[in-house]
């Protein structure tokens, strides 16, 4: 028996494995499939579960995501591990044309309780074909739910909520967070609700909206700013689609200033959408223009120093906030 509210210290990656273990124990229709899944943390699951529920797939991204869709249509709740987010492009037909559309196109006859896990491998010296953060593409796809956890507890709670959700969910995990440890709830029924942002720090002068792996930088920036007498509120959006605009708008109503930190490419980014929503809905509350801190519209280079220069840092967030004074 576990005590109510008890926690255990887990890394972000361990939390994901735990979530899968608990959901596979809870529901025998949950299966896990992907390429060399043991390499990506699932080794310990092989000790516990029947191999028929753990599928190492051939290298066929479009089809194995589609196999997940077909299985989801017919009684299973598959978790498909698409390992590296740049491979989403290969599977985009099955994700966008099938998973996202089948419920709609059949007038609600079908549901697609599919979870696709995938990781953004930026800041890892893997060069342009492995370092994408393609979540804006899927934010632009009606019919999908898109998640981007920034903490171990959220990685666990959101993945579990996704497995129990009857719609197709794509989770972007951030490898820059994989080793970050946290006290994570032990209770197998603690879920993090899809569609709710988290206020990570309260403040009055500026709202910093953080997406996925930007969170540690946003928190450090808020510390820095506090030292300069600026009180920053930090919101971790957690769910990219549907976006919790209510939490963002009420924060901006209080602070009047907004900086959005997003490691996707600048044009058509999640930051762009949030900026547009705030300009449409809360323009009167804004004391200064909205600012986006994003990766520039350029491919990710192999060279490590050049690569690091592209992404969100504490200093870039602080500089953006300072421009608002």
């Amino acid at each position, binding site marked *: 028996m576990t005590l109510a509210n008890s926690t255990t210290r887990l890394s972000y990656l361990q939390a994901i494995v735990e979530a899968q273990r608990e959901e596979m124990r809870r529901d025998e*229709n949950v*299966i896990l499939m992907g390429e060399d899944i043991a390499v990506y943390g699932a080794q310990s699951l092989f000790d516990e579960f029947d191999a*028929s*529920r753990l*599928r190492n*797939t*051939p290298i*066929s991204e*479009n*089809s*194995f*995501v*589609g*196999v*997940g*869709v*077909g*299985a*989801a*249509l*017919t*009684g*299973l709740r*598959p978790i498909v591990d698409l390992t590296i987010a740049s491979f989403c492009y290969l599977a985009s*037909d*099955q994700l966008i*044309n*099938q998973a996202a559309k*089948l*419920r*709609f*196109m*059949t*007038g*609600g*006859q*079908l*549901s697609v*309780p599919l979870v696709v896990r995938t990781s953004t491998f930026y800041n890892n010296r893997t060069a342009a074909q492995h370092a994408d953060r393609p979540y804006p593409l899927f934010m632009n796809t*009606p*019919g999908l*739910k898109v998640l981007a956890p920034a903490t171990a507890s959220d990685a666990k709670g959101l993945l579990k909520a996704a497995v129990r*959700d*009857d*719609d197709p969910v794509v989770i972007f995990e951030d490898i820059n967070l994989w080793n970050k440890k946290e006290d994570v709830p032990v209770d197998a029924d603690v879920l993090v609700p*899809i*569609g709710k942002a988290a206020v990570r720090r309260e403040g009055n002068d500026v709202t910093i909206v953080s997406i996925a792996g930007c969170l540690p930088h946003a928190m450090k920036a808020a510390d820095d700013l506090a030292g300069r007498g600026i009180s920053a509120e930090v919101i971790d959006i957690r769910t990219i689609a*549907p*976006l*919790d*605009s*209510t939490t963002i708008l009420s924060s901006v109503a209080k602070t009047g200033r907004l900086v959005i930190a997003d490691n996707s490419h600048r044009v058509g980014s999640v930051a762009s959408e949030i900026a547009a*929503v705030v300009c449409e809905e809360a323009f009167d509350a804004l004391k200064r223009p909205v600012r986006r801190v994003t990766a520039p519209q350029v491919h990710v280079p192999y060279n490590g120093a050049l690569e690091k220069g592209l992404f969100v840092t504490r200093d870039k967030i602080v500089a953006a906030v300072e421009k608002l004074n």
Partner: protein
Amino acid sequence: MALDREQQLEAFRRMLRIRLFEEALIAHNPVGHLSIGHEGAIVGACMALRDDDYVTGTHRSHGHPIGKGAEIGPLMAEIFGKRTGICKGLGGSMHLTDTKMGLICESAIVGGGFPLATGAGLSAQVRGTDQASLCFFGDGATNQGTFGESINMAAVWKLPVVYFCENNGYAVTTPVSMSHGQPDIARRADGFGIPGITVDGQDVEAVHAVTADAVMRARRGEGPTLIEARTYRFDEHSNRLAIPIEYRSQEEIDHYRNERDPVALYRAILIQRDLLADIEAIEAEVRETIDAAVTFAKESPEPETSDLWDNMYANPIGLDRAMEGQS
């Protein structure tokens, strides 16, 4: 496993339903990709399945649900775009899906159905049922990557899937000979280590026999089979497409229409078996069914704008903002 007398009449009924359903569409509202000429292949395959077996179809989507025994009215209403349509008017001609009959999708993305049918087979295997999954596709679709990817996975995992090619010889205007390095589609099975079988698609009983064998093989856990039914499309690729080039000869079309019509061929066989009276009764009944479906479709209401959002998510969260795009 030959068809008994009742099944023979049922096969004829379903073939005729497809034929008259599509002739009604031509008469009332020229729309979509017709299966006229493919009835023997479609019905022969579907008659080898149980109601709880899965089927994925193609953009040429009308025959598949009818072949599986779906109710006609909602299919017709769907093509008229009506709220009473099987997909509430949101899917239409290339996407006639009836989940009650095991149809899990018709894909207008050529090759999109391979993974879905394979996934349905995986699901049956993991859940430990003896359901089979049958994937319809055209000769053109076999050049998509999903063909090889999916069949390979099904072969490795011995999934209960039947891959069923309606080879009508053309993809829009491109003949098989100009798009396939090796034009014998059944032979591609060798590359995956599974059986590949060619059958005359105009002979409904021959198609039924090979498909029934493949389905039994699937249920026994012996894995997938690739079936190539040689058939022919009598009409154009799509009624909406004006094709400026002569990519097939009139002589060829006439030959199939006059000598190789699967409905006429089967009717003649059943008459030889002394079933004329039953056939005539079925003909009257099917005509009535189709007329009633057209009336139902015409008189049905249009969908509402709000239906769009009602069918987006099983668990909708925070959709209010998404609706604002309308204003």
